[in-house]
């Protein structure tokens, strides 16, 4: 199927980590609001997290344009269901499976959507959290993160879970905010403005324009040589 055409294999404006975890009573998802242009912190109010239906939310890291494209496609998919009068709205498990098939198909054609996605929500009354990436790798887990989040946030969540298996809503939120704070300290492409989504059996709540700048303490910077 080689038409001689080649497609870009690098992201332009990109988003960094996404972190998600399942807690006792729901699923939580967080992502910061930065669109980086390489090392330039270019767009500082990019919404990388969105509500798909009352049973599913999606957050992506990677190329922002690809995220916006897939968001449009998914929103149309939901619209088609509503217009068709279907009673069953798209749930997190179905969205995860569909996204896997789409992303894998694109990669197989050497025209990937440069994304690492986290799907959070409910499937058949059970909390659901899944990961899909640009090469079609897909899995479900109780804690999931992309990019730097995999290295910083996931171990933090697992450590907290070792102490207490089932986290409450407040504990989960605190943990997630702590993860994002650590990521802001350590990830050069991260920012202090972020979004947080909370999915419960009642529905999806997205908290926009959250800010963790006030909670950060950069005193330690003084001890780093070359800071001043």
């Amino acid at each position, binding site marked *: 199927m080689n038409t001689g055409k080649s497609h870009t294999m690098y992201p332009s404006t990109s988003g960094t980590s996404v972190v998600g975890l399942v807690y006792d009573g729901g699923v939580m998802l967080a992502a910061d609001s930065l669109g980086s242009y390489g090392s330039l912190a270019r767009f500082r109010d990019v919404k990388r997290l969105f509500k798909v239906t009352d049973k599913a939310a999606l957050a992506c890291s990677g190329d922002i344009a690809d995220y916006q494209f897939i968001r449009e496609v998914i929103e149309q998919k939901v619209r088609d269901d509503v217009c*068709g*009068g*279907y*009673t*069953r709205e798209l*749930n997190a*498990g*179905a969205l*995860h*499976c*569909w996204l896997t*098939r789409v992303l894998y198909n694109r990669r197989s054609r050497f025209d990937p959507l440069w994304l690492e996605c986290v799907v959070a929500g409910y499937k058949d009354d059970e909390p659901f959290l899944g990961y899909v990436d640009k090469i079609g790798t897909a899995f479900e887990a109780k804690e999931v993160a992309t990019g730097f989040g995999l290295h910083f946030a996931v171990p933090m969540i697992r450590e907290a879970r070792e102490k207490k298996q089932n986290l409450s809503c407040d504990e989960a939120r605190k943990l997630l905010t702590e993860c994002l704070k650590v990521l802001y300290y350590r990830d050069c492409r991260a920012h202090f403005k972020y979004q947080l989504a909370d999915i419960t059996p009642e529905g999806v709540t997205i908290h926009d324009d959250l800010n963790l700048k006030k909670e950060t303490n950069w005193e330690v910077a003084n001890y780093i040589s070359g800071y001043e």
Partner: protein
Amino acid sequence: RHQNITGVVDGSQLLVMFRNQYDNDVTVWSPQGRLHQVEYAMEAVKQGSATVGVKSSSHAVLVALKRASSELAAHQKKIMPIDKHIAVSISGLTADARVLSRFMRTECLNEQFAHNQALSLNKLMERVGAKMQIATQRYDKRPYGVGLLLAGFDEDGPHIYQTCPSANYYDCQAMAIGARSQSARTYLERHLDEFRSSTREELIRHALRALRDTLPNDVELTNKNCSIAIVGKGEDLSIYDDDDVNPYLEGLDQEERRGGAGGARDAQPPAAPTAAAEEDDAASAPPPPPTDEQPQGDSMETD
């Protein structure tokens, strides 16, 4: 303008069809605002043998009368599985039914592959309806000459759907289509209030009784000419043929037939009607003739 009147005899009914200049093309309207080709296609459904569908609050059941084109041939399969949660029973052109069944199966498979979930019945019906409608609006196609009864179970519970060659589909509590199905529909209407709370076995018996009412007096339901499909809450689709049908026929009271002159039969499942020699209870009634009601020399295989 020339008008021919042709009469077609089917069972006890006399159909009178007006042939006129508006019926050769499905893309031509009659002055009365009718598409005659579509209506003629619906006649094909009435030629097929009867099938009944009925649902309770937890299960959906299909029963069908299988026809054998001759004594040498096997009884034509009437119920086709579509997925673990959907079965379809056909009446009319079997070949057309197979095309639609294949379409439904691929739709169900695609949903399973792309979304990892079972296809909802209402979604499936919309797609089948859209597909059948194309054939009623193109000059190079003809309507599908088959009526379907679908039984399925999804997140909204059990469903019975009926489709017509007109591409309309109907969500039903109970329905019967095919030859002499009016008798079955009368039974279903009379017992409509009992279905919702019926148990699994009661529901199958209701369906079988309705089906039995479509039979001529000298024909009985046997394990050769009867098919049962059931799907429901916590139960994947099962289709029963031949010996698997026996337990459900046994539960049926063969003597209590609407207007039937049933001979003295015991509770044992009757053997194939042509195997007259083995019957020891054929005291009063002579062995019944084969269940084939198809007019002879009919080239269109409708079942």
